[in-house]
């Protein structure tokens, strides 16, 4: 009986320990691939922001600092760019941010560049939170976690340029890297779970007409897809599939036998969103996160292929 009790109380502790505190060198490959895909996506995404720097972030633009400081919504999110009068300085800082993203994509001085990238990312977001949308929000979490993950261990310039395990480059995994990886995986599950559960509150998702509504959103339409009105069953099945997949993703993705199928469905779903709703950066961002669920062996095999 005492053995049973001991097992009953200790097994969750052992499971917790194994989940968070057992680093695996092979997983560093997944983190490295994620870094490349994620940062390259974000680099292109933030290049598109350059023409709007003045309009969104300068004192002459839409949100003067003097007004931002009076609104609660902005007050709790400080930024070094509040009060910055020189437009040239803003462009220079944005240029630095883009350069950091490029360095992180190719894995140059990764350990030092990651915290700076997160800092500048947050400062730009905080300067004008009214122009933020999904990609900005999701990426904030992953920029933060990248600081703690040894993402430059593989497929990086650091690996080519610096000695193994110098202060500039570490080739092995540590507990802190592993924790960062776990937090990134959990974060994706949280995003899907909450998106799915929120949808359950909506009547349109229950009656299966939600996908129609999405396709008719005037500002997101790319092509005339009127033909889908003749196959309402397909629309309803799609809506239920999205619901089912989002809600169960956080459970099924941890099952080794199902993981790749679940991720593959996700890839198709996001490609669909990217192509038909004209949201390519959102699609690329979400798909890049999937690399974190692949094993080192799978990454090696894919790269060889």
């Amino acid at each position: 009986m005492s053995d049973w009790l001991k097992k009953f109380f200790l097994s969750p502790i052992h499971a917790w320990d194994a989940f968070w505190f057992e680093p695996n060198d092979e997983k560093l490959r997944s983190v490295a691939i994620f870094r490349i895909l994620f940062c390259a996506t974000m680099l292109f995404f933030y290049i598109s922001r350059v023409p709007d720097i003045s309009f969104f972030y300068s004192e002459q633009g839409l949100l003067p600092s003097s007004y931002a400081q009076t609104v609660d919504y902005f007050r709790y999110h400080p930024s070094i760019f509040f009060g910055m009068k020189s437009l040239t300085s803003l462009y220079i800082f944005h240029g630095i941010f883009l350069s950091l993203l490029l360095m992180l994509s190719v894995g140059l001085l990764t350990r030092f560049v990651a915290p700076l990238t997160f800092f500048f990312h947050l400062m730009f977001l905080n300067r004008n939170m009214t122009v933020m949308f999904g990609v900005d929000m999701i990426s904030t979490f992953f920029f933060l976690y990248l600081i703690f993950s040894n993402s430059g261990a593989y497929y990086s310039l650091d690996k080519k340029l610096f000695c193994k395990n110098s202060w500039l480059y570490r080739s092995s995994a540590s507990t802190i890297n592993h924790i960062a990886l776990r937090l990134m995986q959990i974060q994706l599950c949280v995003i899907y779970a909450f998106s799915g559960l929120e949808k359950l509150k909506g009547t349109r998702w229950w009656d299966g007409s939600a996908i129609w509504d999405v396709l008719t959103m005037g500002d997101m339409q790319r092509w005339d897809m009127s033909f889908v009105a003749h196959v309402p069953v397909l629309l309803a099945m799609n809506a239920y599939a999205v619901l089912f997949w989002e809600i169960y993703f956080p459970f099924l993705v941890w099952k080794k036998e199902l993981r790749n199928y679940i991720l593959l469905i996700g890839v198709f779903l996001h490609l669909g969103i990217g192509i038909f709703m004209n949201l390519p950066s959102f699609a690329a961002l979400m798909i890049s996160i999937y690399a974190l669920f692949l094993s080192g062996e799978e990454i090696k095999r894919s790269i060889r292929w």
Partner: protein
Amino acid sequence: MTYNFLMEKKSVVWKILISLFLLFHLFGVFLTPNPRSFLANAVSPIYRPYMNFLGLQHTWGFFAPEPLSPPLYIDYVLDQKNAPAITGRFPSEKSPFFFRDRQNRRMSLAKFLASSEDHLRNMFMNHLCNQYPETTQARLWRVTITQASLEMVRSGKKKITDPVDSKIEILGTFYCLEKNNE
């Protein structure tokens, strides 16, 4: 003694401390997306400042609870001192940008602006008055556009891309005060 050395030792004390921090962090990650819950309300002073500081205060509800959130535009007529009035719509109905993300940011901005008279006056009007220095006053409207229903498209009366209705609400008349005073 470096942090890594401590990590390698995996001392029980460190594991407990890190676990406590992880629990705190995860607490924030799970509660933040549901800010109106009793639990979130009760404990928000503990985790909110931490989440806000790191920029992690977001909720997740893509196309939820209802996907239909008709695009919102702000129409304006700007009366000029010595010239005909200027009319416009923010943002433009069809994205003029190569990168769709630029339009998404403007759509999000338009919703924020139209949510309060203060935002309209201090942000949108401030911008318009700077952009068109001859403006004396501006009349603003909120425009939401409804698209065709499934039945309409099925019966062939409309295409999916056809707008069927515009809801126009008056937002008010605003003045470029500083310019007038000059």
